[in-house]
């Protein structure tokens, strides 16, 4: 969300207006989405408090589990957001700045409700750096180092979000996910680049139990990216998982 409107970015740059957040939640309800991640992408840069009224409204409307992120930097905010009926709280800048904060949040609401979002940019082939503040501030840390520190702090889930692939709809970045998967057993969700259900199938085939997240895929339609909220039907979605080629032998060591 940007300025109270839902937007979709490309490489964390130009953003396109997609619609009203509450209305979008209602449509995702109808589509029976597994889980919704709602990110206020400018909150941290603006130093703004989370918009509790909006969060409450989203939580009341949402018939699926919800994760909220944006401007969260202390335990009281996390408690308050969870109290509003939100299952998980996502942090990015705060997690990078202070991994111990993750421990305190986990103690307050349980690990399962603390999600760290790592926005990653490729620096040189095979190397990545985590950025914060909507992709504008380089952290000087790699996703691998941060994933290790976050696991030690008790984070419940890590979202690996590729800035380079964001909005491009050309597929996920498996290279960075391979690296993170190799160093942590924390549940992972992969975001950035999905352009088709095939991309999601490839993700599940490669990693087995993994969260597949997408933005553009579910809000745009066609070559000209007309705004049209869409989502696979339950049977289609089940076939992505049930026909998975993943075997534990393939899991990176």
């Amino acid at each position: 969300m940007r300025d109270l409107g839902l937007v979709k970015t490309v490489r964390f740059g130009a953003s396109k207006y997609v619609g009203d957040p509450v209305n979008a939640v209602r449509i995702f309800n109808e589509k029976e989405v597994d889980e919704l991640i709602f990110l206020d992408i400018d909150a941290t840069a603006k130093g703004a408090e989370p918009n509790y009224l909006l969060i409450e409204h989203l939580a009341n409307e949402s018939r699926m589990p919800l994760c909220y992120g944006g401007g969260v930097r202390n335990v009281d905010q996390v408690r308050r957001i969870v109290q509003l009926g939100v299952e998980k709280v996502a942090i990015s800048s705060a997690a990078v700045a202070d991994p111990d904060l993750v421990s305190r949040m986990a103690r307050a609401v349980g690990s399962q409700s603390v999600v760290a979002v790592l926005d990653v940019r490729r620096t040189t082939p095979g190397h990545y750096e985590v950025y914060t503040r909507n992709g504008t501030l380089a952290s000087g840390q790699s996703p691998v180092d941060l994933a290790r520190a976050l696991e030690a702090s008790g984070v419940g889930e890590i979202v690996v979000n590729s800035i380079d692939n964001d909005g491009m709809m050309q597929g996920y970045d498996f290279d960075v996910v391979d690296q993170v998967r190799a160093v942590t057993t924390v549940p992972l969700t992969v975001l950035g680049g999905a352009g088709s259900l095939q991309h999601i199938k490839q993700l599940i085939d490669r990693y087995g139990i993994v969260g597949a997240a997408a933005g553009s895929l579910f809000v745009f339609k066609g070559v000209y990216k007309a705004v049209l909220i869409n989502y696979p039907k339950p049977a289609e979605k089940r076939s992505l998982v049930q026909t998975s080629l993943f075997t534990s032998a393939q899991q990176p060591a």
Partner: protein
Amino acid sequence: MIAIVDYGSGNIKAIANIYKSLNVPTCVAKTPEDLADADKIILPGVGSFDQAMAHLNASGLREPLTRRVREERVPLLGICVGMQLLARHSEEGDCAGLAWIDAEVKRFDERRFSHQTHLPHMGWNDLDVTRSHPLLSGLDAASGFYFLHSYYFACDRRADVLAQTEYGTGFDCAVNVDNVSGVQFHPEKSHHNGVQLLKNFADM
């Protein structure tokens, strides 16, 4: 009128919203008077057993709730921690439960988990219906329900169980004795299956 008990725990508005879309009148019960007119009662709940029990005990609603449910036999649906409070006791804490169903609440034994199974049980899972009951009618087996818990309900008698779910081990996820029912999962976060179950409760 369905009363949704507000004792400081649970997704009350999300439940109320679903009933609003079904044109079923609800009220949020904060005082004993709010419970007086209800012909059905929902006891939601999130967080820890002791916290929820302490809130219920401090709310002034425990006695009127007991009277309406145990004496007047008003149908009650406990959800998540609200269901767990129906048991005698939970391994999660020290407080005594309501003991309206002969059951204990136990912690999942992680030693029986495969390496990728974590606590809490958080996510979508399926039901294995063992006793048919109006509460579970018309549900879509393939879609499942959303769960979020580390402790599970264990009935003394199999006959009190409506459905089980598998997470490392099988556990009782839907139970019923006379007018008292409970579900471990969150119908308010389970799309059409949840709406159907809430509708079934309203129609019971």
